[in-house]
């Protein structure tokens, strides 16, 4: 305190410096008050419903709700969180909790590296969900095929640069695939395929496979479906001329997740140069019969026979067009962004489309990182439902 006591001889400069924190503090308080009032105007009226009820007021619920609304609608939250990331990224190379950094310009989803309690039981429970579903679908003449997508940190381990991937993850795909195969579930492990594919198979700044990886995976799945006679071999080989590639600059989803995307170009990682392919859509599957035959009463011969469910892997890097290209037939995709293990499966299987136009094959794309996660409430409910139906 004594540092700010007026000293007659050393005078005004020291005084002004001593008062700088107070000036800054008052500015922050006043400006903060203004922003808070403006932010509160953005809160929808419905959010305040019942806030003045005596029971809510007296028990502290009203103030808790008020604080929650203020924090949620605070106008500067987004730019401030971006400033924070700019500082931690610039000073320490930090990408936040959701994203981990490997070699230069290589980012990985932390979810892939996270260990969970009771991992084996979670994986077994998910295998049981799949088994029960396969049995159920088989009863309706539909085949289920599971395609397991390996983690980026597994396939691109050469770019981890010391980023730790738990040793216990080594066998998590093989073990799960073995569980399914024991029950004669059609399962494709995409790990060997992607591992054997030359070049980069995943985007550097994205959690998903790139076109190189998606292409290889699609070719392997198509080969499997054709080899197992779930899908007719196309009468003509896939036309390479149907693929037109260019190179584009691209920011991956991990830049968005880590909040680096909005930073000035000088601060953030350089955009990634990636391949973008335009694929001429496949014609309707050629089953060898004319679509005008008397069997095709409702013209449904042209409907896709493969329904794809899964996650954002299926919605990225032209995976579906690649798959359709190799199958020589369109694929109906019901995959969901952020759908987790069960999201798109529950939405599709419980929906009208499935009930009214069931496919011949349900192809379920499952990312490795979801296998050992604790079951969500929806998954537990699904599992219990399946048990009751036995």
């Amino acid at each position, binding site marked *: 305190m004594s*540092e700010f006591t007026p000293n007659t001889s050393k005078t005004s400069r020291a005084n002004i410096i001593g*008062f700088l*924190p107070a000036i800054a503090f008052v500015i*922050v308080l006043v400006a*903060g008050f203004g922003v808070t009032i403006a932010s509160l105007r953005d809160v929808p009226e419905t959010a305040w419903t019942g806030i003045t009820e005596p029971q809510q007021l007296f028990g502290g619920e009203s103030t808790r709700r008020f*604080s929650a609304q*203020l924090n949620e609608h605070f106008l500067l939250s987004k730019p401030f*969180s971006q400033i924070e990331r700019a500082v*931690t990224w610039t000073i320490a190379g930090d990408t936040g909790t959701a994203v981990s950094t490997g070699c230069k310009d290589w980012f990985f989803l932390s979810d892939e590296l996270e260990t969970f309690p009771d991992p084996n039981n979670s994986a077994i429970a998910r295998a049981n969900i799949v088994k029960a579903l396969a049995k159920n679908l088989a009863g309706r003449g539909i085949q289920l095929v599971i395609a397991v997508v390996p983690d980026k940190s597994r396939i691109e381990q050469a770019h981890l640069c010391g980023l*730790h991937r738990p040793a216990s993850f080594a066998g998590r795909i093989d073990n799960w695939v073995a569980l399914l195969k024991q029950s004669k579930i059609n399962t494709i492990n995409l790990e060997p395929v992607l591992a054997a594919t030359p070049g980069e198979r995943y985007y550097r700044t994205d959690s998903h496979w790139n076109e190189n990886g998606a292409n290889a995976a699609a070719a392997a799945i198509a080969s499997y479906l054709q080899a197992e006679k779930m899908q007719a071999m196309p009468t003509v080989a896939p036309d390479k001329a149907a693929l037109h590639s260019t190179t584009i600059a691209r920011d991956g989803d991990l830049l968005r997740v880590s909040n680096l995307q909005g930073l000035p170009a000088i601060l953030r990682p350089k955009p990634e140069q990636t391949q973008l392919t335009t694929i001429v859509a496949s014609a309707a599957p050629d089953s060898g019969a004319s679509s005008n035959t008397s069997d095709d009463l409702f013209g449904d011969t042209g409907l896709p026979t493969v329904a794809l469910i899964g996650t954002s892997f299926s919605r990225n890097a032209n995976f579906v067009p690649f798959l359709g290209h190799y199958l020589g037939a369109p694929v109906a995709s019901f995959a969901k962004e952020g759908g987790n293990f069960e999201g798109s499966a529950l939405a599709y299987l419980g929906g009208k489309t499935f009930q009214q136009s069931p496919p011949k094959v349900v192809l379920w794309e499952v990312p490795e990182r979801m296998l050992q996660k604790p079951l969500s409430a929806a998954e537990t409910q699904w599992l219990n439902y399946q048990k009751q139906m036995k």
Partner: protein
Amino acid sequence: MVFASLEFLTLFLPIFFAFYLITPQRFRNHTLLVGSWLFYAWWTPKFLLLIIALTVLAWGAAILIDKAQNERVKTRIMATTIVLNLASLVWYKYTNMVVQSLNTFFTGHDLPTIPWVNVMLPIGLSFTVLHAISYVVDVRRKTVPAQYSIISFSAYMAMFGHLIAGPIVRYKVIDKELRERVFSSEEFAAGVRRFMVGFSMKVLIADTLSPFVSIAFGLHQPSFMDAWAGCAAYTLQLYFDFAGYSAMAIGLGLMLGFRFQENFNNPYLAVSIQDFWRRWHMTLSSWLRDYLYIALGGNRGGAIRTYVNLMLTMAIGGLWHGGDNWNFLIWGIIQGSALCCDRAFTMRGYSMPNAASRTLTLLVVMLAWTVFRSSSFDAALGMLAGQIGANGFAMGDAVRLALRPSLLLIFAIGLLCVIYPASSFAKRGGLATVGWSGVWRAVWPILTFVYGVIVLAGQKAIPFLYFQF
């Protein structure tokens, strides 16, 4: 409401200061009281009634003591007030734990359990009780005059700077300022600087370490590295959280014209456990000394009695911290045992080099923090087992993943802040020796405070650790 929150910084504080500054001098305690009650009521308004009841009890008891002619009557009034205060503390803080322990015992012996709905602990009750007891005892001891103004006394008890988590401000410390204080721009500026420093300690260091600590202390079988990394992070987190809070409280006090006592003095540089308690939560340790240890007889009853008193004081001090489980009692017993050993060691004339005694003291403190932080006795045993290497040495997957670059940086900064006062550079005068300390001392709190506000607004507020006590 917590200090490090948007609602406090951008709503409560500007409005409060606006009213406070336009209030005429003689009514400022009124404004302070209303503001403090609103601050408290933000959490759970119904518990404000309890705080008011305890305030009126202490205020009335002090007046009765002051007016009573008979010494025995004075003592009885004091004793009754203490019992009632402690009763409220016991009811709200320990009943859940006692009933749960009994039910565990009953379940193990196939006996019917006690039907029980957990009692919610009113925030800041522990500190209110200590304030009330010290005031009534001081009036009885005639070390402070009774305050006849209910407004002034309520303003003392409810003052939002110290109400929730200390420091424990004894009435005699601010008696004069309660009666009359003038606004001083120099003190306001000094208070702001102190608040900024405390805010930065809390938001930038303690809150950054918080998720890592939760992960480490949540492990079932932590390795040696996991357990020590978690313990070290908690050692820093607790200090920067609580010392940060105390600095904010002291700063707010100064802004309003009150001079609270210091609560921390580089505790992790202590050369003995006794020294540690002279540097850590100083207002609590001096409270325990003056109102418990001395009341028990202190060191006036011979060696054995002194050791018993030390153990009792620290055990009760430990118990005061927590009503969730028995770990706080165990922590207090560990501290009491360490104090007894320290005393026995020094009484026999032994000594050790500073570096060794500092290291040993810090080791004991950290092992005790392990018990203090663990969620249960079993969890504490698990962490301690990890600390002796019973679960292997290598760092586990979860801890490795959690060790992000910014966490390591903050850990290093925190460590540097703790060690800096012991460095020869600091002892030689620090930045003053390079000639730019004046500017730097004013500018760095602004930078860290503004950045702290940015961080705070970009994420959720994390409550102070000492709120639970």
